[in-house]
């Protein structure tokens, strides 16, 4: 195979031009999907983390079981279960609903663990001091504990968010027309790998700055652990 053939197979401008509208639509859907599932997962995690502050074993143990359950199931398994399984229970779900449910359960568990660690990292004295000044428990949580908790685990939160955005690519399995799905469509029509290569390049351009930022934060975090 000559170099020209290789270029033609993976970096064909002509194919890219043809496929661009399809890829663009996919990119927009990927962004849209991220904007939906990231806050959804974060919300789920926040609920779990707040429940984790309740000192009752009737809350604590079911909570740990819930989190470990959804951390044990691979996200794709959860998604397929929701999408292909629920119709048998008489519940027709659209691809988007299935993705939303799957991400809420899966990424919620991860965000929950991170936020729990964050809340635990805030010294008890902070809550006590806040309560002494007359804040209610809810106010102390919202205005004193959570802001510090989020700051303490910011690298982990960003890292998880990066993973969630990458994970939106599994929505292609349930035929949601996001970037990877569109690229596969274009590839199967053109018999050319350029669209998938283009999708990879788009993901890289989009997420590389986040990876750089994380790499810096993580190095600093590890150095601080000595």
């Amino acid at each position: 195979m000559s170099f020209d053939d290789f270029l033609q197979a993976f970096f064909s401008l002509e194919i890219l031009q043809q496929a661009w509208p399809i890829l663009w639509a996919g990119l927009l859907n990927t962004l849209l999907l991220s904007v939906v599932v990231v806050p959804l997962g974060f919300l789920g995690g926040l609920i779990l983390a707040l429940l984790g502050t309740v000192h009752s074993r009737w809350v604590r143990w079911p909570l740990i079981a819930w989190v470990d359950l959804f951390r044990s199931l691979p996200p794709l398994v959860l998604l397929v279960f929701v999408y292909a399984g629920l119709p048998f229970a008489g519940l027709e779900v659209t691809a988007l609903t299935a993705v939303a449910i799957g991400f809420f359960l899966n990424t919620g568990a991860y965000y929950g663990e991170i936020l729990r660690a964050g809340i635990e990292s805030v010294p008890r004295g902070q809550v006590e001091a806040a309560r002494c000044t007359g804040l209610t428990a809810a106010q102390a949580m919202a205005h004193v504990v959570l802001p510090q908790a989020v700051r303490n685990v910011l690298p982990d939160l960003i890292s998880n968010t990066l993973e969630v955005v990458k994970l939106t690519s599994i929505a292609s399995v349930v035929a949601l027309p996001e970037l990877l799905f569109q690229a596969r469509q274009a590839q199967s029509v053109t018999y050319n790998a350029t669209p998938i290569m283009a999708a990879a390049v788009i993901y890289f351009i989009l997420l590389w700055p986040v990876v750089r930022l994380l790499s810096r934060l993580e190095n600093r975090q590890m150095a601080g652990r000595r």
Partner: protein
Amino acid sequence: MTNWDRFLDSFFNARVAAEYLPKIIEGFWLTILLAACIILAGVAAGLALAVLRSLGIRVLNWAIIFVVDLFRALPPLVIIALLYFGLPAAGLSLSGFAAAWLALSLVLMAFTEEIFWAGITAVPKGQWEAARSTGLGFLDTFTLVVLPQAVRMVIPPLTNRTIAITKGTALASVVAVQEILGAAQAGVSFSFNPTPLTLGAVAYLVLFLPVVILGRWVETRFAWKR
């Protein structure tokens, strides 16, 4: 038939379960095989890259950083698609197993390198200097003094990352590997009953629940007092 009976008949159908259990068990072993291959290759390659990076050869380090960033930014499913659907265009056909193995190994390699590198740089410079001044060479200093301290620091993040990437083996079902999810989906489409999916979910829980709980333990066991 009440709704409850219908639900049981769909998701916990004993006849279907008996028929597809052998397939799921085959898939179970295949998942373990794939995961083992990924962990071996990924961790070894990642550690090798981190060691290479500590040599401090500038051009080489840029190349390593780029490769690591690349595989941290790309969604694993996109890499699998590129290898499985794209490479044939270059006259190179990989089996689904090989494509999934290579893709996930590269991703694990990237994260492992990053984690080990952070660990190595977190070992104080004085450790290097003290070891060198006792007459140890670069290699001895690195393997006997620096690496053992680095490894201890990196065990919790490395364990968690390895678990997360190992769960990515479910993505192999997209490229027709009959691991747990692949076998379960095939079972659903043959039997028109979601019980194989239930079995698959249980199989994943059997496999990953102990690992997730182990991860929790590792995190507290190796936690560094801050």
